Each structure stands twice: as structure tokens, then as C-alpha cells.
């Protein structure tokens, strides 16, 4: 399951927001929504496979929390060759020539 595909589903985004506030059990998550527990479990499975949340067992309960590094991947994918990156390239190249011109005019 792709990260983007996982996040594209509205219910899963709501679940992510909920878990970003703190670790919760599947039951706690399900109690916040008007859909069935199996449907929530399916969403949690997708988010886990996409690396966006982590699961741990506490006795009979399964607890879920957000994985910041899962988002870091999405973040770098979105930013790597972006207009924001190209704007930084523009600033760096222009600054280099300005400094070069200053140095040359001093000689």
C-alpha cells in the first residue's frame, strides 16, 4: 500500500489526526467513528502497512501511534524537486554570482 493512497482516504486521515494526539487502542479509535470496528481495523492495517502508524500489544489490546518517520518520507517526496527547492537553487546561484562580482570588482 502506497503512503499517498493510504492518506488519500478521508477516514484514514481522520484516524491519523486522532492518533497524532496520542497512542490509542483500536477500540478507542472505533468509538470515535460511526463505522464498524472491522472497518476501523482495516483502516489501521492499511496505515500500518504504509508505515504511517506503529502497533504494539498491551495484554489483549493493540495500541496504535503515529510514526513520524513515515511522514518524513512523504514530506521528502513532496519537497525534493519542488518549486520551493528550485527557489532555493535560484537564491544560491544568484548569491554566488553576486559575491563573485563583488570579489572581482575589488581586484
Amino acid at each position, binding site marked *: 500500500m502506497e503512503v499517498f493512497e493510504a492518506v488519500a482516504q478521508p477516514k484514514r486521515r481522520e484516524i491519523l*489526526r486522532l492518533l497524532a494526539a496520542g497512542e490509542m487502542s483500536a477500540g478507542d479509535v472505533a468509538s470515535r467513528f460511526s463505522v464498524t470496528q472491522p472497518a476501523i481495523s482495516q483502516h489501521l492495517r492499511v496505515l500500518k502497512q504504509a508505515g504511517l502508524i506503529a502497533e504494539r500489544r498491551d495484554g489483549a489490546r493493540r495500541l496504535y501511534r503515529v510514526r513520524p518517520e513515515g511522514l518524513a518520507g*512523504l514530506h521528502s517526496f513532496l519537497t525534493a524537486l519542488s518549486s520551493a527547492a528550485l527557489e*532555493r537553487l535560484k537564491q544560491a546561484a544568484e548569491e554566488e*554570482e553576486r559575491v563573485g562580482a563583488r570579489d572581482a570588482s575589488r581586484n
Partner: protein
Amino acid sequence: MPATPAETSVVEHRIRIAAHPETVFSYFTDPTKIVHWMGTEATLDPRPGGACRIRLNEASVVLGEYVEVEPYRRIVFTWGYEQQWFSMPPQSTLVEVSLTPEGAETLVVLSHRRLPGDLAAAGTRAGWSHYLPRLVVAAAGGDPRLDPWQDIDVVVQAVRDVAESS
């Protein structure tokens, strides 16, 4: 070179830079300069078949190879992720950069080709310009361990709008 899948997308950026093509070129081929605008660490061997490896942050490394290096005019390299992100394994996509002098400026045209034809490509196309400044703010300070709450909010908003507009 892997066969081109049937359904792929291209994302194109154009930017004018008030600098010579020679200067702009070096920001795609010099590892100490590329990190001024992309990633934190780079190993670049700018000749056909030479490696192009850029660490974007703790969680992602881009791995590719230079395909064409024509000084001050054109740079082509493959692009993918060492990690299993976005159906884009190492070398699976292609970045073409052309540099054209226009008076005192350089026109940079960057085309990212062979993007897998899924939501990732739609996001790549639609998401950049509008949302990226906000994402960059969310990641300000260069700390790759993002604040999950702030970042989820921004990313989720961006993805929702992209998904609904595609």
C-alpha cells in the same frame, strides 16, 4: 533502463535564475553545492553511468545515475528512493534539466518523467507549488524529525485537496 510503464506522468518546472548557466550547472553536479537547495548530504559522480545519491533526510535517500552530462546545457539523471516510497525504486524515474542562457539570466526547465501513474504523480503535479511553502515551514529548522501533529495537519490537507482535484 527499465521499460516505461504504460501509465506514467511528467511534472515540469520552469524557473529563471539571474546567474550564468555555468553557475547553475554546478548546483546539479557539485555535491557541496547541491545540498544548498536539496538534501543534507550528496555523492555525485557527474558523468554518464556515474552515481547520484542524495540524502534528503533521516528517512529518505535518493539513488540514481547520471545519464547525460553536457556541460552548462543539459543534465539527465535517474531518480528513485532507496526506501520503498511511492513505487519509485532506485533509477525508476528520470529527471531532465536543460539550461538556456537568456540575456543575463538562465532559463531552467526541469522535467521529472516516468512518475508512476497513481496518486503520487497527481500529488507531485498538483501539490508542489501550492502547498510546499507550507510544508517547508512545517519542517523549518532542518530537523528531519517532524512535529507529527503539525505535519500531519499540513500533509493531510494537501493530500485531500490533491485527491479531490485529480
